[in-house]
């Protein structure tokens, strides 16, 4: 019936220590308004901006990760409009010569089939963030205030091609971008603190019975500050546009682009008040700033400091550790510290599949229950690896290992490899390797279970399960495979 066409504009705060054009701190500090300010970010008369080269460097890293071309020469422009949170009456941004353009992100739509969507990046440019207007929400009509702590925080604005085809794809894109930017350590992407904000341009291409498609008017949904809200807002908007189209048959030629907000409590988009006059930002080059140039050598230096992207890490994990696409996706999606933890365990114990199972099940479960990050997790990679090594060496069953794992976490003592051995010894969980002990246990169980033995010998294969269980219990820890073999032999050959 129709295709959904979505393009995103994403604003990402770069994690510099100081603002993009002055030395003030970028720390998130909403409780103490206007303390992280100076004449420059307050826009006082006579103050002048000076580029924080670190902001530019992080911007370049971001753009390189988005497969963008980096301009050898870039400049700063003033975007002029009046607003209380914009102390200079203009925002320093980039207009016609952004520092980068023309990239893409490959979005894996289906991990199993490997289906991907290539999302084009039109451009990424640097700019300064505005402050924040604070309105009295008590209803007592108190004066509004402006907090300029945020004013001058470096932002990268990333503009995609309208390549996304569903609300889910839009969310997936933001998740991928989030992973990319946090892996590169260019942004903390903390959405509660507004480090990543998104505007979504949405319209429909409605299929006509006679063939060609008709585009509905474009709607820009502003200030979406979570992945879930982005998805919800687009879902709502698609439905709304479809109903609107059926009712009015309005196309992109009949109505200009309009702006809507998203009310996440009601789950609806609503029209935002249009600006009083048509926006003419009167961009022009900022004469207070000199253009920025970068050489190939400098670019190489930045490239060399770039860590692996999530996409590269996913394909490497599949090859290096023979993981499924699904497992790699889960591990990488947890963030770089988690992926690093995985890799340490996998390398140290030598079995990536085993490490992945433990990480994606046991460790993730515990983290969730304890509301911890991997960095806070008590069992460090060397200890988990020690535990898994004991399983791989058949000194411990997986079941016993899980018991030890839980004990390690519940104990007050710091989990260590020797602590594992203490628990194993105390609980007698070590796999019995002694053939005589196993044979004795088998003999004892056979002696006690005449009926089951008879059943088995009469051809009831399933009866062996209960017998194995009893032997295992008797031994407290044994290699189930070895027990099964010996028991089968005893039942087949041995005297009754």
């Amino acid at each position: 019936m129709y295709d959904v066409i979505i393009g995103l504009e994403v604003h990402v705060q770069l994690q510099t220590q100081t603002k993009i054009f002055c030395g003030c701190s970028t720390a998130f500090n909403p409780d103490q308004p206007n303390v992280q300010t100076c004449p420059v970010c307050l826009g006082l008369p006579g103050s002048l901006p000076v580029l924080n080269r670190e902001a530019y460097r992080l911007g370049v890293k971001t753009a390189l990760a988005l497969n963008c071309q980096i301009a050898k020469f870039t400049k700063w422009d003033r975007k002029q409009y009046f607003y209380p949170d914009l102390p200079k009456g203009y925002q320093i941004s980039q207009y016609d010569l952004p520092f980068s353009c023309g990239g893409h992100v490959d979005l894996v739509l289906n991990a199993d089939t490997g289906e991907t969507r290539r999302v084009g990046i039109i451009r990424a440019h640097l700019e300064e963030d505005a402050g924040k207007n604070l309105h009295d929400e008590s209803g007592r009509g108190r004066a509004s205030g402006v907090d300029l702590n945020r004013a001058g925080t470096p932002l990268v604005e990333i503009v995609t091609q309208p390549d996304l085809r569903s609300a889910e794809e839009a969310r997936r894109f933001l998740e991928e971008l989030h992973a990319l930017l946090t892996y590169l350590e260019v942004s903390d992407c903390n959405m509660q603190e507004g480090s990543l904000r998104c505007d979504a341009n949405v319209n429909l291409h409605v299929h006509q019975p006679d063939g060609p498609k008709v585009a509905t008017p474009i709607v820009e949904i502003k200030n979406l500050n979570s992945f879930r809200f982005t998805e919800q807002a687009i879902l709502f908007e698609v439905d709304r546009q479809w109903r609107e189209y059926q009712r009015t048959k309005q196309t992109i030629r009949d109505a200009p682009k309009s702006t809507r907000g998203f009310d996440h409590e009601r789950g609806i988009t609503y029209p935002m008040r249009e600006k009083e006059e048509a926006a003419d930002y009167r961009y022009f080059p900022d004469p207070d700033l000199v253009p920025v140039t970068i050489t190939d050598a400098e670019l190489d230096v930045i490239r060399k400091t770039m860590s692996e992207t999530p996409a590269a890490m996913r394909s490497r994990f599949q090859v290096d550790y023979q993981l499924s696409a699904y497992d790699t996706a889960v591990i990488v999606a947890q963030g770089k510290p988690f992926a690093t933890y995985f890799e340490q365990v996998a390398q140290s114990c030598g079995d990536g599949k085993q490490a992945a199972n433990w990480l994606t099940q046991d460790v993730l479960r515990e983290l969730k229950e304890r509301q911890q990050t991997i960095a806070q997790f008590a069992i460090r990679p060397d200890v988990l690896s020690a535990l898994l090594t004991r399983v791989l060496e058949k000194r411990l069953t997986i079941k016993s290992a899980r018991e030890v794992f839980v004990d390690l976490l519940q104990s007050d003592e710091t989990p260590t490899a020797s602590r594992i051995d203490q628990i194993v010894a105390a609980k007698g969980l070590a796999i019995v390797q002694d053939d005589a002990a196993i044979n004795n246990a088998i003999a004892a169980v056979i002696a006690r279970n005449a009926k089951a033995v008879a059943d088995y010998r009469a051809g009831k294969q399933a009866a062996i399960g209960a017998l194995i269980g009893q032997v295992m219990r008797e031994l407290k820890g044994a290699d189930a495979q070895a027990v099964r073999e010996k028991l089968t032999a005893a039942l087949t050959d041995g005297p009754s």
Partner: protein
Amino acid sequence: MGSGQTTAGELWRRLQSGEITSTAATTTALDAIATRDSQVAAFVHVDRDAALSRADEIDARRKAGQPVGWLAGLPVAVKDVLCTRGQPTTCASQMLAGFRPPYDAHVIERLHAADGVLIGRTNLDEFAMGSSGENSSVQITRNPWDTTRTPGGSSSGSAAAVAARMTPVALGSDTGGSIRQPAGLCGIVGMKPTYGRVSRYGLVAYASSLDQIGPFATDVTGAAVLLEAIAGHDPRDSTSVNRPVPSWTASINEPLRGLKIGVAQEHFAEGLDDDVARAVRSAIDVYRSLGAEIRDVSLPHAKYCIATYYLIACSEASGNLARYDGMHYGHRAASAQTLLETFSRSRGEGFGAEVKRRIMLGTYALSSGYYDQYYVKALRVRRLIRQDFDAAFAQVDVIAGPVTPTAAFKIGEKTDDPLAMYLSDIYTIGANLAGLPGISLPCGLTPSGLPVGLQLQAAPWQEETLFRAARMYERETDWHRRVPAMVA
């Protein structure tokens, strides 16, 4: 200074040698202000006690054998566009009435560090927009040579204060001639350094790519002394250039051998007053007599200077002055009910007519649909103007010519004719567009006793050539010792 016979350079040497105290020099200046500023109206703010206590502190240090800074207690007046911590910095605008910055401009820091004594803040055309000082919302400064006439502008107060010997030196800012033009009309020395020579940090911006701070003084040496105190790289201004600052005062008395002086016919075309032309030509003859070679040079795009300047300066100004919105500081309209009214009424009430005119011109030039034909075109012409100068300076060391087409004009004479007013900067604007240094120095009096200025311009960073060339002339003449009747 007394009768005005002591030049700024001489006073500075006496202060350095300890022959005279800063307290004495400062008292002389303050007394002159008390006596004469009622006629001149150069100052918008004078803090006598602060100046004297600062002078006293410097003298005490000298007496105790401790080191004293470069300026050695020299009194300095500053144009009221230079942010000074805790002092009113108004740009002669109602928009900034009562505004006291929480920080010092780079040049103010440098003056403090050099032991200059800030004696007062001087009047100007509002936000440095004007050529006569008449656009001040505070007061109209008068030319000390004839108080019915303007001192020129926009640094009207600084020029008039030095001319009336109320201060030996002063700082101004020059965007299209705002130092050189009033210096010329007031018979003193004024210099605009190369763009990037002096940090603009803390200079309230008019047109960022053209603004440059520079000195006024009663003589060339005084100007060099003051520029040496404020020049040099400042990392807080991206357009400040990191180049060594030569000791201009050390070389200033060395004449330039084989000096090649260019004379542009464009500077002697229609509109130039005969008396001014005569004085400037005889100044060039003085150079010839000193062995300089005089050559014709051509500045074919000079005729586009005014149009180019007003497009670029106003465009930048429209952005630079957007911050005055009644929101964070400065004037806020009391009657405003809505956000839009707060913006529009605060600006409507706070800005004067000329500032509004330039903001509107600039807003128009940057508007969608006009940007290419105005702003972008002006940038292209600016490049051509710079190339004219490059070509000229490949042949000559300095270009000599008039500062202004006429001597000082009457107060009110051009206020109803902005274009006529704009033309008074016709010879000075080129240096701003090309980023060159230029100096204005007195070279005569008209038959009615008004000063005439000689302008010398040089290639970027050649301030030393300008100072030495200007001093060569000054040593041969005594125009710089002539003072207005009110001083004598």
